[in-house]
């Protein structure tokens, strides 16, 4: 029993510290009036252009495989794509990783069901700078940016916003 206590005490000492996530930072709506268009090849080699999503509500998510808060979000985004896809939601992922192989592995691991393309500095600058992750933009069916979500986002709040903006609720 004493030995068991020693083992348990040692395990407790090595347990990682828990951290409480800070609140989300919603930078506000209308940061950009019109979403800048871009075309990139997605991970499957298919052309991905933002203008092809006119008529849909787009959640454009900049992320990376080494970004913890990003990895916490993407399974929820995949679930939303399933739930709200028929109502006109389209999730689009842009990875800021250097290596696409890692992104392909993450795509499979997290069972992502939406297109992901590799981003670069030019694309970041097009959106006013992707100077920290995660970063998501909500783009309405007319191609206007109606929301910018930087850092750890309150996903309940974001989901409510998405539901309120769906083209076919």
């Amino acid at each position, binding site marked *: 029993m004493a030995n068991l206590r*020693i083992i348990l005490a040692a395990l407790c*000492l090595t347990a990682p510290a828990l951290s409480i996530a800070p609140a989300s930072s919603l930078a506000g709506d209308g940061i950009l009036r019109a979403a800048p268009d871009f075309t990139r090849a997605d991970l499957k080699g298919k052309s991905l252009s933002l203008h092809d999503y006119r008529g849909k509500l787009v959640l454009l998510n900049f992320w990376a495989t080494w*970004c913890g*808060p990003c990895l916490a979000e993407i399974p929820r985004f995949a679930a939303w794509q399933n739930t709200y896809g028929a109502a006109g939601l389209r999730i689009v992922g842009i990875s800021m990783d*250097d290596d696409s192989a890692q992104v392909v592995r993450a795509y499979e691991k997290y069972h992502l069901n939406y297109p992901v393309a590799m*981003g670069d500095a030019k694309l970041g*600058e097009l959106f006013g700078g992707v*100077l*920290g992750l995660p970063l998501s933009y909500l783009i309405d069916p007319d191609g206007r940016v109606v929301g910018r979500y930087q850092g750890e986002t309150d996903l309940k709040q974001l989901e409510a916003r998405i539901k309120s903006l769906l083209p076919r609720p």
Partner: protein
Amino acid sequence: MKHKTLKALSLFAFAFILLSQLTPASAQHEPAASIPAADLIQPADLAANLKKAPTPLILQVGFRKLYAQAHIPDSEYVGAAGEDAGLELLRNRVAKLAKDTAIVIYCGCCPWSHCPNIAAAYHALHALGFTRVKVLFIADNFGDNWVNLGYPVSR
């Protein structure tokens, strides 16, 4: 017999845990909170220091696409220190420097508590014997805590 087995098992478990504590932690598991507060520098203070000579060696240890969009003037991109390759690039960059070289490292890739790079870089420099290492405290990200505050930026 049962007692002996239990004793052996507990000794083995204790030794394993002790060894895992002594082995340098992998870069990905170093929390930014492990950096002593005394070794942090606030953005406003670093921005003020940039106006004075001599300026420290400033190294960006985050992701390349962030550096390519915006970085602190005269800072150098080294590599993402959360990855072994980036950590090796950092070690190579400082290999010939005097141990009392003033070095500031920064990342800003993501919220401080989730940064995979900054603590790995800090602990690597300390392990190499550098005595004047400061870490730029970026609470949320480089955009919000540096660029948007109007501090100097090169693009």
